[in-house]
């Protein structure tokens, strides 16, 4: 296990590669998903993963937690889940004759909010404070959550029955929205072989994953990423993209300033993964789809024509002038 709180950029990049390798032992394939999840972790953001059930979302989170010996909690969102079930609540202790706080499952490093769109908006919003401020207020008292903290929410595609779409305010708090797709043929064969080998039942097997970091090293990586240099022209490029979404034909709602912030934060993490101490417009472009796709709403006519937000975003990226001096 690596204990490095004052690490160099190269060390951080190497560590990130190790994290990827370790996660890859449990999660077969899905390299882009792992890459983007790591970007969100290093940027200190939260992730919304969308995909049909059974593609290894829980396994990914558990493996990620195992790589840095972090705590991991999972909340299965259901229609009758209450906000207090998520955040925690106070109980009257008869022995001490006083109120004591019972902390909810959000007090962890990695929180898997499974099928978040199965719960109504009231419960979904219980996560707003912790996602933004890394603290939970119970009975007027703020309780910080352990760091590093990341919420990984999963949701089924919105067309499915019995789902509540996430409110815009909540969506905006996710740094990235990642699409998880079916594995490729060869990856699926490997996965089936790995899961069924010497194993009864179909529980998730993360015994191969070894811890290569600690929560402290992850925090150090986050600090290092936050220190990566950003040129003014690159910030302007990110802002230009986000501003274009606001009056782009085919979009009814564009991204707010959180979109630009997310672009720069995620691009910093991306540069760090590539052992670079500065970000380039390429980083912005690469991360633009997952960082912005959930902050936009398609115009009804585009939805009717079968366009997706990714297609519109790609159109914007193809039109916005890249910086160059």
């Amino acid at each position, binding site marked *: 296990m690596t204990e490095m709180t004052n690490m160099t950029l190269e060390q951080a990049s190497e560590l990130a590669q190790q994290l990827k390798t370790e996660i890859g032992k449990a999660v077969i394939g899905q390299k882009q998903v792992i890459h983007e999840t790591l970007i969100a972790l290093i940027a200190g953001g939260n992730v919304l993963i969308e995909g049909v059930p059974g593609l290894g979302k829980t396994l990914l989170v558990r493996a990620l937690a195992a790589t840095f010996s972090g705590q991991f909690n999972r909340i299965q969102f259901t229609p009758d889940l209450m906000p207090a079930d998520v955040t925690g609540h106070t109980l009257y202790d008869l022995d001490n004759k006083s109120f004591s706080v019972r902390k909810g499952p959000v007090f962890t490093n990695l929180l898997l909010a499974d099928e978040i769109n199965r719960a109504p908006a009231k419960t979904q919003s219980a996560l707003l404070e912790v996602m933004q401020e890394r603290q939970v207020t119970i009975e007027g008292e703020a309780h910080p959550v352990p760091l590093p903290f990341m919420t990984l929410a999963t949701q089924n595609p919105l067309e499915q029955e019995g789902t509540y779409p996430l409110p815009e305010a909540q969506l905006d708090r996710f740094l990235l929205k990642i699409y998880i797709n079916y594995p490729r043929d060869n990856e699926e064969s490997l996965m089936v072989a790995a899961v069924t080998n010497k194993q009864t039942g179909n529980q998730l097997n993360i015994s191969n994953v070894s811890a290569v970091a600690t929560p402290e090293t992850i925090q150090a990586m986050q600090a290092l990423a936050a220190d990566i*240099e*950003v*040129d003014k022209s*690159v910030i302007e490029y990110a802002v230009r993209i986000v501003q274009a979404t606001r009056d782009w034909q085919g979009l009814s709602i564009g991204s707010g300033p959180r979109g630009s912030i997310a672009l720069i934060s995620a691009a910093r993490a991306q540069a760090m993964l590539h052992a670079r101490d500065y970000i380039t417009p*390429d980083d*912005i472009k690469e991360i633009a789809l997952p960082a912005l796709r959930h902050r936009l709403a398609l115009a009804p006519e585009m939805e009717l024509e079968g366009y997706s937000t990714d297609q519109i975003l790609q159109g914007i*990226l*193809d039109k916005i*002038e890249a910086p160059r001096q």
Partner: protein
Amino acid sequence: MNLNEITANIRLRNPWEAIDLGFSMVQKWWLSIYLPLALLTFGIASVLYLIFPKGNVWIASLIFWWLKPLYDRVILHILSHKLFNDELSTWQVLKALPSLIWNTGLFQSLTFRRFSLSRGFNLPIWQLEQLRGSRRSERQSVLHQIAHTYAAWLTIVMVNIEIVIVISLFGLFMLFLPEKTANDFFVGMFSNKVEYERWIDLLNYLFYVFAVTLIHPFYIGASFALYINRRTQLEAWDIELDFKKLALRFETLARNLIPALLCVFTLSLLSTSSPVAADEVTNVDPNSEIEVTEFLSDERLPAESSKQVIKETMLTKELNDKQTVTYWVRKDTAKKPKNDPDKFSFADFFEPFAKIMGFIIEFALWILVAIVLFLLFYFRDSWLHLFNIERKAKKESYQAPEVMFGMDVRPDSLPDDIISESRKLWDNKQHRESLSLLYRGALIRLINIEHVQLKDSFTEGDVLKHSQKKISEAKHLFLDNLTNNWKMIAYAHRHPTNEAMEQLFNTWVSDFAIEKVLSDLESNTSKKDGSKDE
């Protein structure tokens, strides 16, 4: 044609009432109409479907639609016989088909008269009156005077009803499909991604044939009723019928009354009869008496008195329903002064010039229209793509830009010797300017010599990616190196070492800034060498 046999109530109607009468006729005689018609339409439709199978069913639909004048004739044949109380069997109708095809102007109806909006209304002139040539056109123009507008609108409305029925039947069918299949179909339809499926074609075709078979008799029925109504207006069929009824009543009355009068007369001779007894005899059939008084009053007025009664009658409210209609009239037309041949008029003087000018302007406008049409056709590529986003994306033409990323990328904007200029800047510690010049030079070479299509939105990474397949490996390696150094100075504000820069200058000359032909020759030579080695 025997008006006595007519089975419909003939009276003077307004055209909408006449259309209603047509609909009622079809409702009343539906069995006699639909049976032979369905045999004909579904028979033709089946044959057409067999001739134009998979993928060409639309041709079958088109031909079926085109043959509508044939169905018109069959329906009118049945209706005209039924109207005069002549019952036709299905077999008789089908047997009449050849004569309906040859003797009713079907060829004209299927060719240059196919798009006539008053087709149904004109049909009785061809088929029942058997008029041709100038007599037909004179007759038609008389009949058209009031009824043509209604006949044309009737055609338009009925065509629309047919379409509505086809769509409704399709919608009804979709209701019975599983939700997902129906949704996919509709989404596919709107996104133009419906794959060809035979059942869709067949269903469309069947529904259309059904709609035509169902609606067409109503169209012909209403058109025929409009025609009958127009003839009633012109030839006073209603009055003729009333007179005939009157004559019939008189005949009946005379038949009953004369023997009775003879009887009374004989009895009065034989016995002394009282006036009461005479009254009793004359009132043998009180009904017939009422019928008579209905038309002829017992009281006979002298000529002067009748004049007075007529005058009074003409003054009644029913006959004096006067309305005041106001409308705008142009002042100059209302008070147009009469032409005075002696008085000089400017208007008269300029009239010939105005006519010539009018002719010239009209001619010029037509030329303008022709030019616009020609230009639209000539530049069709530049506006047709507006209707197709995907095609637009595919066919977007590329022109070498002059300004990219805020930089002048025209070849003549570069100094003659890039390397010495860049080296000079580098020596003057203008590192950024030096690398910028080199990178700009590389981009200009890519655009103008290597013909790599670059866009404003391309980042440095995109430029590398897009040029990879267009330039040789050595050139791409150099470009990669140059881009990395450029990115470092542009975004990290760190300049490369002097050695790295020197290497860039050298490689520019040896690997990158060489003519394409030369590099191709070299690569060919190296390939040949390689093959020799093998």
